[in-house]
């Protein structure tokens, strides 16, 4: 990234006008795609009294003071519009989509900006496999003028590790993960060497070894994640049980994450509470649970699958950009 010397030059956008026009065209195409399929565009609040409990996500907090809350109220910028969208689904909206800015503290890098654009959609009556079909169709359609791609491939999480990292993610100990990382030429800090949590090793090997090999000349969907990485997906019984979750990759870039959505309010509450304990153990700030989401699930979430797609990364792929700055008018350091 080019760090600019000061306001004299960095008042300018970091994206070219050509890329900004491409962004606009892709947004238009997106809306045509969903309108043709009868999916309703909706909007939900960016500011909320509750926040995600996921220990790997940090919410920005701000403050409202005025009518309705004269004593003041902490409001969190959403990290994803998932919870209010599920409330709409439970209220009978049918299939919906949203294009919105989301906010994540602590995330800046070649593929990350703390404020970015997410496309999120939910399909009533779909499972994650049907939603993978549709996600593939949408992305192929949006990228059609930028590159020619072979038809998408699907690998289970296990297959992707067996093929690209040479190990079975469900039958490997922390010590063996460490050896595998060394074998792949990855040197880690002393703190990481003594890491005992399998998920940390899986994330290390996924990002350093597996991901760079995914999505070469075609979309690659990874599905059937470890149950410990289910997030908001339902768990499928089996040996081992796996999460009905998928991710989409192209050119080694993670583009989308989807679930066959968990609809069980009790299970959802248990996961929230586990995450709150994990936050406390890690010294992370406590956040209020979204009781309205739990009430909506208790009322009944229709059987559905949902997916979130990083729109900026899609524009990166469509324009051949190397960094997210090249597709944002004003990234963090110029904002």
């Amino acid at each position, binding site marked *: 990234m080019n760090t600019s010397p000061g306001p004299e030059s960095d008042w300018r956008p970091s994206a070219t006008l050509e890329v900004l026009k491409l962004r606009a065209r892709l947004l238009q195409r997106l809306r045509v795609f969903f309108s043709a399929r009868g999916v309703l565009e909706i909007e939900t609040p960016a500011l909320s009294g509750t926040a995600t409990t996921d220990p790997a996500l940090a919410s920005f907090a701000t403050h409202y003071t005025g009518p309705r809350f004269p004593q003041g109220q902490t409001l969190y910028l959403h990290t994803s519009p998932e919870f209010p969208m599920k409330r709409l689904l439970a209220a009978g909206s049918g299939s919906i989509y949203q294009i919105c800015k989301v906010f994540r503290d602590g995330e800046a890098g070649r593929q990350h900006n703390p404020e970015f654009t997410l496309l999120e959609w939910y399909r009533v009556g779909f499972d994650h496999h049907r939603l993978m079909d549709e996600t593939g169709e949408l992305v192929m359609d949006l990228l059609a003028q930028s590159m020619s791609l072979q038809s998408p491939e699907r690998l289970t999480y296990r297959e992707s590790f067996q093929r690209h990292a040479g190990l079975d993610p469900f039958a490997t100990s922390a010590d063996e993960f460490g050896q595998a990382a060394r074998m792949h030429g990855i040197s880690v800090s002393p703190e990481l060497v003594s890491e005992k949590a399998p998920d*940390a090793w899986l994330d290390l090997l996924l990002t350093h070894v597996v991901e760079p090999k995914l999505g070469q000349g075609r979309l690659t969907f990874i599905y059937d994640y470890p149950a410990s990485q289910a*997030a908001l997906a339902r768990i499928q019984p089996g040996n081992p049980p796996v999460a009905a979750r998928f991710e989409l990759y192209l050119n080694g870039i993670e583009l989308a994450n989807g679930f066959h959505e968990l609809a069980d309010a009790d299970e959802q509450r248990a996961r929230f509470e586990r995450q709150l304990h994990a936050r406390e153990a890690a010294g992370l700030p406590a956040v209020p649970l979204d009781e309205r989401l739990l009430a909506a699930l208790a009322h009944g979430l229709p059987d559905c699958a949902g997916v979130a797609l990083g729109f900026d990364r899609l524009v990166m792929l469509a324009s051949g950009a190397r960094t997210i700055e090249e597709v944002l008018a004003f990234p963090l350091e110029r904002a």
Partner: protein
Amino acid sequence: MATYSTNEFKAGLKVMLDGDPASIVENEFVKPGKGQAFSRVRIRNLKTGRTIERTFKSGETIEAADVVDVEMQYLYNDGQFWHFMNPESYEQMAADKNAVGDNAKWMKEQDVCIITLWNGLPLIVEPPNTVTLKVTETDPGLKGDTSGGGGKPATLETGAVVRVPLFVKEGETIKVNTRTGEYLSRA
């Protein structure tokens, strides 16, 4: 003990790595869709000059290296050490062979060098980007050769050997780029 968190990592930051001072070359923020974030850095060991990769968990801290760059004037070599002086404080300092390394062949008395100090002792000695040195030995140029393609070797007063154009003669002084070892011009 000063420390840096991964949030402070950037190119040029001096840290301790495996007991040696090191300089971060590049830092990449890596995070899967859901899960643990990492800092993946390329980092150069300032003692060995080797660049390696190392991955940290986001939020980890690492010890800072007490490393500063100072400008000092080169005085003389006593056969074992290269002696330098701070032109403002007149403080003197000696650097050994490990610190000077291959740059010994560019060291000319009175030139101002950049010395990287670690815990107050010279770790790396960098000569100026451009030095002006006298040619002590070179073959006479071949008359009529104006192609300019080949050039010829010339030995300089500090012992360095560089390729120079055929018209350069013994006793002349020339400018040389110390980073590339290339002839620039007659002085």
